[in-house]
């Protein structure tokens, strides 16, 4: 099921942007689609490099990270409770608003 929601992005250079987006396979795919190009995601979305680290706030519950994602997150210097890997996060259909802040480079 595809659902649209409001995606609010704070980019690494501090600029912000809000767009309505159709949901996709992962948050990373969404961010690429709206042109957030500072995310390297060098492993191509396979939870292997943690270069797609973002901070996420949503207006509803998000799926919990699985063990691989948790382990990668734990190794990051800039980890906070809002940390997620964009490649691993599938935005749940109940979400209508999502704020994503691109984390600093490690």
């Amino acid at each position: 099921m595809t659902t649209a929601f409001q995606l609010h992005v704070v980019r690494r250079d501090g600029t912000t942007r809000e767009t309505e987006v159709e949901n996709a396979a992962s948050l990373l795919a969404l961010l690429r689609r709206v042109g957030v190009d500072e995310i390297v995601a060098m492993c191509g979305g396979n939870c292997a490099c943690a270069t797609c680290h973002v901070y996420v706030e949503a207006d509803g519950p998000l799926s919990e990270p699985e063990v691989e994602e948790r382990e990668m997150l734990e190794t990051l210097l800039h980890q906070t409770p809002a940390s997620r890997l964009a490649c691993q996060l599938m935005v749940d259909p109940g979400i209508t608003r999502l704020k994503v802040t691109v984390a600093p480079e490690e």
Partner: protein
Amino acid sequence: MTSNMSRVVIIGAGQAGVSAATFLRSGGFRGQILLFGDEQVLPYQRPPLSKAFLKGEIGLEDLWLKSATFYVEQNIDLRLGIRVEEIDRKKAAIRLANGTWQAYDNLIIATGSRPRALPDVQEEMEGLHQLRSYEDTRRLRKALSPDAHIVLVGGGYIGLEVAASARALGARATVIELEDRLLARVASRPVSNFLEGYHRARGVEIITCASVAALETDGGRLTNVRLADGRRFQCTAAVVAIGGVPNDQLGRMAGLSCDGGILVDHNGRTSDPAIFAIGDVSRRPLPFYGDRVHRLESVGNAVEQARLAVAAILGQERPEDEVHWFWSDQFDVKFKSAGVAFDADRQLLRGSSEGRFSVLHLKDDRLISIETINNAGDFVAGRKLIASRQVIDDTLAADADVPLKSLISLGNDRKLYV
């Protein structure tokens, strides 16, 4: 080299070339950037070509390295569908397929690698595949219907990834490997054994110690793969995945020093100081391995060399050396490795071989490489331990109840805290 008038020309718009263009701009370069790619489509990531993209789970736009607007916003002159035919070092210019010349102040060769061909086999044969471009993958996907039987010639990472994808699509899959085990040149025996068992349990047929003698056809269409020992495997398609060869022709023609890839120094600089070669096409010294010269085929290496070459071109401080890393996904197994096990004197197993473990390779009591199965924590900690070059205790390192990151001693470098 940072004047507004200078021009950097990049040949190859894969991970290495696009990364170099990106780092030039983020590093403050205000001159001209010309990025040439020989494919018609926006630059894309290749690793999913044997995995999610092959299975049809994601589309080509999900593979884009950067959005279309990025190249415009960053003032990167992206020229797609153009082959570069020649480098003239005296003129400091390259010749394009249409005969025009483009001058450069610095040239970056990022032409990548291509699949090694099976010797003595005619290349054009219906049903015979290799995997390098998204078009290769699209062709192969059409051949992977549930009634298909695909033979993978080569039990390396790509062969195994394609086998797993084929099974997910319902096709039969047979892997033919020359050596006595899968991944013989690139992974340790515990990893090979685990993956072999995992693939067999999911219906992949694996034949080791087997060399292909002939591909048999009927009316120009592949029908059987015949082995040297006479065994024949009927199939609807075959993929040859027996390693890669560097696309170093331009470098060789131009007289750059080459030896199984374009030879470069620690910054990716070739024997011509104005020319750099990065990514799969280059052969480079590895600082964590006594500067042994090696050719690496990986995304991580492409990005690292792009960063090093750009810093050298811009005259900026050299970035820190990185420990090489690699990953592969097969079925739901996540394999990750760091470093290379050159001349390791012993091997330690952390955890049981059942679904989650790591293999540590040591030399002179230091960790030089780690391979992990479904263990991202060990992978990241291991990579940092390799970089720290510190002596580690075997008993602690082999104890899966002791977090690997706890072995990293508190040095001055804050990055070593995990």
